[in-house]
């Protein structure tokens, strides 16, 4: 169970990063950013490229995050910003889909189709232990990176002028401009930050798997959607906690109930997504909302 617990924490980190990127965009911009899996692919490609170039292993993850950061700015500038300027908020979702199509196409053009093997992460695969818990360097790195990056994003979004600026720029660009906000830069910075989170997840996943695939696997993405559906929109801490809890619960069920079929995982995640969305639909309005109405 020790190694499986570490594995579950690693998977929880990947799910938490993707879920955080999704819920922050949903909170700030009001749409489900389908380009998040594309950012995952960007991070995966960055890590794969650096691994193939025999770069030090820590640089694989940093390169993945950096590629995602730049990709996030490019996606915002080329696909989303023109629509934001025209006030077509409803078109953000299909535009993010268009951006992700371009990323998938570029990724497949740059790398061989299908799964490509990459050098083994020797240093990051070394085992360590704390008490009974045995884990690899990559497991520890994933958890630490997730906690630090999600904490920083939480502070940036909820405790600084930056988060208010993004909301203001999305809801009322003119008022935000009058308040001295750089409405052309603030949303791009938010998209870049969330894209960097998702691409860090992609880089970690690729380094762990030892191969690059042209897309994001369905089960982690379903896990991320379940975390987004179950947590309040924009709540980074609760989203991360649910992501880790889902992953640990999955590992626990797999250990205690080994006769469960393989398809039980996607089924369970789909049920959780449905339950979270149904709960959100039937939840009574908050007192503040009642007072406002």
């Amino acid at each position: 169970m020790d190694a499986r617990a570490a594995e579950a924490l690693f998977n929880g980190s990947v799910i938490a990063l993707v879920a955080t990127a999704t819920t922050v965009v949903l909170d700030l911009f009001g749409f489900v950013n389908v380009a998040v899996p594309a950012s995952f692919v960007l991070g995966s490609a960055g890590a794969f490229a650096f691994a193939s170039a025999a770069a030090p292993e820590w640089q694989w993850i940093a390169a993945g995050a950096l590629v995602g950061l730049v990709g996030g700015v490019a996606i915002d500038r080329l696909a989303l910003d023109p629509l934001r300027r025209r006030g077509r908020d409803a078109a953000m979702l299909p535009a993010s889909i268009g951006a992700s199509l371009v990323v998938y196409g570029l990724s497949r053009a740059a790398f061989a189709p299908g799964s490509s093997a990459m050098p083994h992460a020797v240093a990051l695969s070394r085992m360590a232990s704390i008490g009974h818990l045995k884990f690899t360097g990559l497991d520890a790195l994933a958890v630490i990176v997730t906690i630090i990056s999600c904490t920083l994003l939480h502070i940036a979004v909820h405790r600084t002028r930056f988060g208010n600026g993004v909301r203001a720029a999305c809801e009322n660009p003119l008022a935000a401009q009058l308040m001295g906000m750089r409405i052309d830069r603030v949303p791009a910075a938010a998209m870049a930050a969330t894209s960097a989170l998702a691409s860090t997840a992609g880089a970690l996943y690729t380094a762990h798997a030892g191969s690059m695939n042209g897309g994001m696997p369905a089960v982690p993405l379903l896990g991320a959607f379940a975390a987004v559906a179950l947590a309040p929109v924009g709540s980074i801490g609760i989203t991360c906690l649910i992501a880790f809890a889902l992953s640990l619960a999955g590992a626990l069920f797999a250990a205690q109930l080994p006769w469960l079929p393989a398809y039980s995982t996607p089924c369970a995640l789909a049920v959780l997504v449905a339950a979270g969305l149904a709960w959100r639909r039937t939840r009574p309005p908050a007192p503040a909302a009642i007072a406002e109405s």
Partner: protein
Amino acid sequence: MTLQSIAIDSLLALSVWCTLGTGRLTLAGPGFMAFGAYVAFLIGQHMHASMWLCIVAGAAASTLLGAVVDLCVSNLSNAPYTIATLSFTLVVPAIATAAHVVRGPVHPLGNAFSAIVCLAAGLPALAFARDRWRFAAGAAAAGLAGALYWTFGGALNPSAFGLDRVGVMVAVAVVGGAGSPLAAVLGAVLLAALARLAAPLTDQALIVDGVALIVVLVYLPDGVWPRLISLWRAVSRSPGRLADGTA
């Protein structure tokens, strides 16, 4: 192969077109497509039924599933609706793969004739899809696309029904535009032609589809079909002025 892929893309875009009338962008099409393909495969493999019966069964099964899914998602607001329909698309092939539904290779049975027949059967039926049956009608179109995909020997793995399929579906639907089910066919034909034109630059049709989708969203938000229709009306109403060059 182009005609077959145009038929599949058109049917899949029709599943979006059906629900766009209600102001919703459903992303569940590839999930229903996968369901239709797996049902057609299972019936063909275990019951040795004819290709046409498998196609009808795939579409019918997707319609029934669509009616059930519609009951679950119809009251959701926009963002939860997107998450729900996208999760459905992810979960169908994931379950089928984990359950090893597909065993052995899939052999091509269909041809261009079957593609045209399926598209011709789907278009008029969907044109009459109204009100609460829109989602189920869209699921039927996607299921038909999946069964058709199976007849062409397509690989029934998760990547065939993944996020890039969602993207292509939305690109065809948005480029074609609203107003008529024929817009979906127009979108599929336009994107296939653009991919052919861009072939010397890139062999990745996904790049062409993505760029076309973004450009249309920015510069032609209603799609190509309504613009063509308004152009046609302008031409047909004032032929004399156009001939004089004074229009």
